[in-house]
């Protein structure tokens, strides 16, 4: 009798201890879904999950959201532990690293099986997720760089419109320098500054992506001019040192002539700059129409136990209905053609200037740069950018900086490729 109770006790205890495992084992139809710093859209996601569960009875959805810099740390730890989320929202080029190392599911077969799905999306954006001929992600939301300019400061400097060439860009910047005022800012993470080089015909790598190609006289000249402009204050130093808040904030402060950034900047800047309206803020493509995309896409982890379910899930999220809703609520573009058309209409009504900004994101989408599908993009960035900083902040001459950058990049490619 007594022994039995004891036995029971121990069993219960054991069960309690083992519970987490059991729980994980039982959740046979659970989709875990990891997003990249977009916790503010909880309401939307809840609606979307409900919609999904209506058609897929008894599917439990676990939603996780992590801040940008933290997400890779989290996702990789989960990979090691074999508990990677089924669906993950990835930004920039990090997906290539995961794809190349076999962490992500190749979506090409699914797209082949359902040809009309691919037709939903802007082909250029969809194409930016192709690696070795395979597509790994569907567009969640999209953005590429453009040129914002402060019309008031342009008038003061007697400038008619936005620059149409690198020379003009530098020259205009110089003309707007006065006291606290400077001429130009760019965001610098994720190669967002690369259009400045590309518009001068400078390429980072050879077309086969095997060797660095940036250490040319032209590049030296470009970098040198950027450095000189920075020293003279025509280009605000924050362009090379700030990440997100600093450059956008500085532009919102109304003392910087131009901001080279992607569409998300608009809302941040508008939030902080009371001066901003259609007469004071100009929106244009960067010279040469070159732009660096920073897109968010949905990938499926290869370790997912329910790849088909996950596919259904991201199809729903990126489909017209919810993409439109998302575009409207978050005021951005999703890469889903119809959704962006409708969403843009709605946004134009509420906020014409915002509409203008987003319009640029759908034009010249054939002129992407700075989005090389390389498995070691992060290492490359880390090797290359500090040298650029050295040059523009006057630490090294453009020549030595690029030479050192070349060595660093070659090292990465030698070690990683």
């Amino acid at each position, binding site marked *: 009798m007594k022994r039995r109770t004891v036995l029971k006790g121990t069993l219960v205890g054991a069960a309690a201890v083992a519970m987490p495992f059991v729980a994980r084992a039982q959740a046979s139809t659970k989709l875990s879904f990891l997003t990249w710093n977009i916790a503010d859209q909880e309401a939307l996601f809840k609606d979307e999950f409900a919609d999904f569960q209506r058609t897929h009875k008894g599917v439990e959805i676990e939603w996780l959201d992590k801040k940008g810099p933290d997400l*890779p*740390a989290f996702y*990789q*730890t989960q*990979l*090691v532990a074999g508990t990677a989320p089924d669906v993950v929202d990835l930004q920039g080029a990090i997906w290539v*690293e*995961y794809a190349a*190392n*076999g*962490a992500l599911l190749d979506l090409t077969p699914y797209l082949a099986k359902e040809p009309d799905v691919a037709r939903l999306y802007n082909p250029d954006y969809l194409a930016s997720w192709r690696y070795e001929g395979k597509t790994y992600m569907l567009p969640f939301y999209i953005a590429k760089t453009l040129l914002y300019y402060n019309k008031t400061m342009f008038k003061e400097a007697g400038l008619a419109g936005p620059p149409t060439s690198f020379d003009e860009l530098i020259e205009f910047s110089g003309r707007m320098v006065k006291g606290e005022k400077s001429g130009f800012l760019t965001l610098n993470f994720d190669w967002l500054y690369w259009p400045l080089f590309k518009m001068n015909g400078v390429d980072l790598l050879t077309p086969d992506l095997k060797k660095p190609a940036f250490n040319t006289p032209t590049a030296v000249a470009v970098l040198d001019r950027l450095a000189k402009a920075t020293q003279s204050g025509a280009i605000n*130093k*924050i362009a*090379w*040192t*700030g*990440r997100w808040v600093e450059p956008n904030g500085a532009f919102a*402060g109304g003392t910087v002539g131009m901001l080279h950034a992607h569409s998300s900047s608009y809302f941040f800047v508008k939030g902080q700059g009371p001066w901003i309206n259609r007469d004071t803020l100009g929106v244009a493509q960067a010279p040469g129409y070159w732009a660096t995309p920073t897109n968010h896409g949905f990938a499926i982890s290869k370790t997912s136990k329910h790849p088909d379910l996950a596919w259904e899930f991201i199809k729903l999220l990126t489909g017209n209905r919810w993409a439109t809703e998302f575009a409207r609520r978050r005021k951005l573009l999703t890469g889903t053609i119809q959704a962006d058309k409708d969403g843009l209409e709605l946004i134009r009504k509420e906020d014409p200037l915002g509409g203008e900004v987003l319009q640029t994101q759908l034009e010249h989408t054939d002129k992407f740069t700075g989005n090389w599908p390389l498995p*070691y993009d*992060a*290492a490359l960035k*880390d090797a290359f950018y*500090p*040298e650029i*900083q*050295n040059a523009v*902040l006057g*630490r090294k001459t453009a020549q030595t900086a690029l030479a050192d950058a070349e060595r*660093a990049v070659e*090292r990465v490619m030698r*070690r990683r490729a």
Partner: protein
Amino acid sequence: MIWCLLAPSLAIFLAYRVLPLAWNVVLSFEDWSPLHPARWIGWDNYDEMLFDDDVFWQALWNTLLFMASAPIAIAMALGLALLVNADIRGRDVYRTIVFLSYPLMTVAVAIIWRWMFDERVGLINYVARSLGLVDRPIEFLNSFDWALPSVIVANIWQTLGFYMIVLLTGLQSIPPELREAAAIDGAGAVRRFWAITMPLLRPAVFLCFVIGMLNSFTSFDLVYVMTGGGPGRATELLVTYIYKLGFAQTRFDYAAAVTVFFFALLISVTAVANRLSGDDAGAMRAD
């Protein structure tokens, strides 16, 4: 019985310190990432670290500078300790104020100081400018020359109080008779300090020093939030580099090599410091 008492702590350290360290040691000889199986590659990682990685050396140098700032802080703290050790009214209040910054969350400290150093609205620049010390603002955290010192300042601000308290009690544990006797023998204040106070303070100083070294990785949050290692590599510490290698570049194998090196470095520095402080100092004393 003794071991039963030690068991829980030992178990925790085993699980969260020793095993991970061992893991790093093994990994440092492998080619591995969360995404593909491990392959033994011998000394390659170390070879790359020592002979083919400028960033590593830069980070190492910065880390050493960071550690070297500990003595400065300790010296300041010692001065403070002497001040608050004087029998004056309200010294408890002073102690509390100076110590107040130690318990703060490092991430928050970083944010606070990013704010203090800010170019436009940072207090430091504002004061400097209104006093006419500088004509245009210094972008502390964005300049190669200022970034590391700025981070160090923030670090000192946070740890100063801790050092002070440790040294303060060191002072108080010195029997006053000694000093008085010396005074009677006609030793001046300065001489008394060097002949009597300092030697007896050794253990406390040593402990401060050890803590100071540990700072070089406990202040990961500080650097990570304040500068993220930039501009360029100006504030890259070994810890931030390890973190970046692992989680930004998915190179845990290589990061492991750096970790092992870092660990060895810390141990040896501690051992040396221990020798210097007369072998039986502070926490190291075995009896």
